[in-house]
């Protein structure tokens, strides 16, 4: 029975994943999953996986209830008006049953994303890995603390000794271990190579970036996180916002802040550079700077400074530098052109992507992650 249900359950999960894969674009576009993220789980609403049948239209049906109240009173327990889907098929079922919700781990979600967008596995930079030590109990030793005493092996040793020395009496099989019989578990230290990564998100929060643009960045960041998390064991994320000056903020602030004023992109790059230098030595870390903006910069002078920082400082240290330009009514989109002019579209460690609207998010994610860097 347990096996049966395990099989059916995994079949169900498989179907669910298939459905999500089919509708991935819709989920990504609507940003439905973000904000539903627990620690490692995502809850996804799935409206249509039930087996269809002929049934009555829900709301018209009405039914029989119980309790106080006079004609015209709303019946309690309905939630918000118009919320949820009523079942009401049988006496006793309530109006307001909700659709199906399934939980996926972020790992599973990343797999779906990877399969659907045909993302290549990321090759971590070869020698730049972190080492970590884990202990595994693999052997037996004749010395050790009592807490690690191996009872069975100790008993065996004592038995062997007693039989060999002729003190074992099958009629009265009492075994007394001596200090020499004691056996203890012993361990071996395993060196494991781990790949750590840091993602540094930078975003332009000047007046021209509106709510819709930020929502797009938020969605992209969620999916990029999800994917990178599935590729690296340890991952850190840092957030930098900038207008004319840059500062580091937490995730909440990152997506909420709106400033007015000018835009100096170089300020963010400088801060990013400083962060890498002090905290994430390139020899130990895989580094992913992402920059989102609407493409406006204050001056050509500053743009030239940006290119310089990128070329000389950021690029040599990063796995890949990603620039996402979110179209907005106010932005000129100039910075994209500048980057393109400077690095070309086929540069090894610079990825440029234009995101016109929510529909474009999925393709942009593919742009960023499709190179396998």
């Amino acid at each position, binding site marked *: 029975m*347990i096996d*049966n*249900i395990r099989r059916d359950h995994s079949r169900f999960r498989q179907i669910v994943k298939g459905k999500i894969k089919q509708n991935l674009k819709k989920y990504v576009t609507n940003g439905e999953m973000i904000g539903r993220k627990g620690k490692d789980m995502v809850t996804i609403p799935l409206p249509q996986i039930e087996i269809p049948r002929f049934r009555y239209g829900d709301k018209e049906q*009405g039914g029989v209830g*119980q*309790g106080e109240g006079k004609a015209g009173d*709303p019946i309690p327990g309905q939630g918000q008006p118009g919320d949820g889907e009523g079942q009401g098929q049988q006496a*006793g079922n309530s109006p307001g049953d909700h659709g199906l919700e399934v939980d996926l781990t972020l790992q599973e979600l990343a797999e779906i994303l990877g399969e659907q967008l045909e993302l290549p596995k990321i090759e971590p930079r070869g020698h730049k890995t972190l080492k970590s030590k884990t202990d595994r109990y693999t052997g037996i030793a004749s010395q050790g603390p009592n807490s690690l005493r191996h009872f069975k092996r100790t008993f065996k040793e004592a038995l062997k000794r007693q039989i060999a020395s002729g003190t074992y009496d099958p009629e009265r099989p009492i075994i007394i271990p001596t200090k020499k019989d004691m056996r203890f578990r012993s361990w071996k230290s395993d060196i494991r190579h781990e790949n750590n990564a840091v993602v540094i998100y930078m975003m332009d929060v000047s007046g021209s970036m509106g709510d819709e643009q930020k929502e797009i960045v938020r969605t992209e960041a969620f999916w990029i996180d999800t994917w990178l998390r599935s590729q690296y064991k340890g991952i850190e994320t840092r957030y930098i916002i900038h207008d004319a000056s840059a500062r580091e903020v937490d995730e909440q602030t990152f997506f909420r802040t709106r400033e007015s004023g000018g835009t100096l992109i170089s300020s963010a790059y400088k801060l990013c550079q400083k962060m890498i230098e002090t905290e994430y030595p390139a020899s130990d870390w895989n580094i992913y700077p992402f920059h989102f903006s609407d493409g406006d910069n204050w001056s050509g002078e500053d743009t030239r400074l940006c290119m310089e920082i990128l070329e000389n400082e950021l690029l040599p240290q990063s796995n890949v530098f990603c620039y996402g330009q979110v179209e907005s009514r106010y932005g000129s989109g100039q910075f994209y052109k500048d980057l393109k002019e400077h690095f070309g579209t086929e540069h090894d460690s610079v990825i440029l992507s234009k995101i016109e609207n929510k529909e474009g998010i999925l393709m942009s994610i593919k742009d960023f992650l499709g190179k396998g860097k």
Partner: protein
Amino acid sequence: MPSFGFTDSNLTPDLARLHEEIRRHALDYGLEPFEVIFEMVDSDAINSLAALGGFPVRYPHWRFGMDYDQFSKGYEWGLQKIYEMVINTDPSYAYLMKSNSLVDQKTVMAHVYGHVDFFKNNQWFSKTNRKMLDTMANHAVKIRDFMDLYGQDTVESFIDHCLAIESLIDPFLPFVQPSVARSTNSGAQGESTGAPEAGRDPGRLKVDRSYMDKFINPPEFLEEQKRKRDAQVKQSRKNPAEPVKDVMLFLLENAPLEDWQHEVLAIVRDEAYYFVPQGQTKIMNEGWASYWHSKIMTERALTDSEVIDFCDHNAGVLAMSPGRINPYKIGVELFREIEDRWNRGKFGKEYDECDDLVAKAKWDQKLGLGRKKIFEVRRVCNDVTFIDEYLTEEFCDRLKLYTYAFNRRTNQHEIVDRDYRKIKEKLLFQISNMGQPFIYVTDGNFQNKGELLLWHKHQGLDLDVKWARETMTALHEIWGRPVNVETEVDGQKKILRYSEGEFTDRSV
């Protein structure tokens, strides 16, 4: 994995003793149950069993997994807990949850004996297969074999299609004489009635004197006879001759299915029929079981220290949250009301015609027929007859029942009425045909193009068109030709049609 021996295979001696005690009480009260075998299972197992409809072995299908997902989440989050489960077989298997307290186990045992007595003695269960445990396992083997042969996806999606029409069966078919039941088959009866005698006008009445002929058989009369006969012939060629409620049976006999598909459809239909009586007697079954667990526990089995816990849990099971009705509560209250009425003789002409409310309330002829009456009710009724016959005005008042409806203007459900006739009507509507729309096959060769025509017998509620479309898609997969459904939408007669990925509807 529980082992299905013929004793309580894994009960602790304590519980086995309790079981014996409860069984004795149940028999003392006059219950006549099958033998009951209790299995002790943990929460994961009970969630699995609940998902599988109580049967440890079912054919592989994702929906069991989906239900399991829901049950185990509900349990983990503390939203719901399955106390008890029992299946209608002989002997009956029932499951006890390991984590329940002793008083809960006792209550569950008493409750289970109520169910099992009901399974055995209620006439609506009389035609069910009591060896369903084996049958289900056989179905599982067959379907697994098909999956090996034709691929899991192919077979599973065909099962999906069959399940979509699972409710399109005739709950009364098991009680119909076999010969009558088979008459739905390809108009076989029509041919024998309409065979004309050769060489003679069959509509002509016999005339002894030829000069009388034009009076006895005037041309208009002959004309009409011919018309009647033509209609009859046409009718007999129609398949089915009369609307058929068991759509699954019609498809089994007429749809162009491969052998394995035929078998799968038959299996799904078989299992659907097995669960029919449970759907038909939800209120009664739970009411009867709750009646007996209360009786056995409060009069016999409960010890002093258990009273509070029992009351607490019992109140939880029978609670009516505002705005909903609980079949356990309605059922048990109705049984008690019937017992009381028949004990005091509150029935019959004299009582019905009495206008004096005070006299009616105090009515007591000390007949003491209550116990006998409820046993009779448990034997002959199903939910529909139970509610129809015994739901009284006093009862609706006492339980504060009302009808509600959806108000489009305020976009919420609102109380409409407390008139007991309307309550009864609404309740009956909800439990007739187990709350499903009445759907019949009326033509297997619609418009002479081999299309399927179903007819929704409209009773005031429209079909949910979105769901209907999905269902028609599934039907199309089984029938292999376009599918039509005759129904009413917003008071307008319509025929919905599905063909090759395209939905149309036209008014008629």
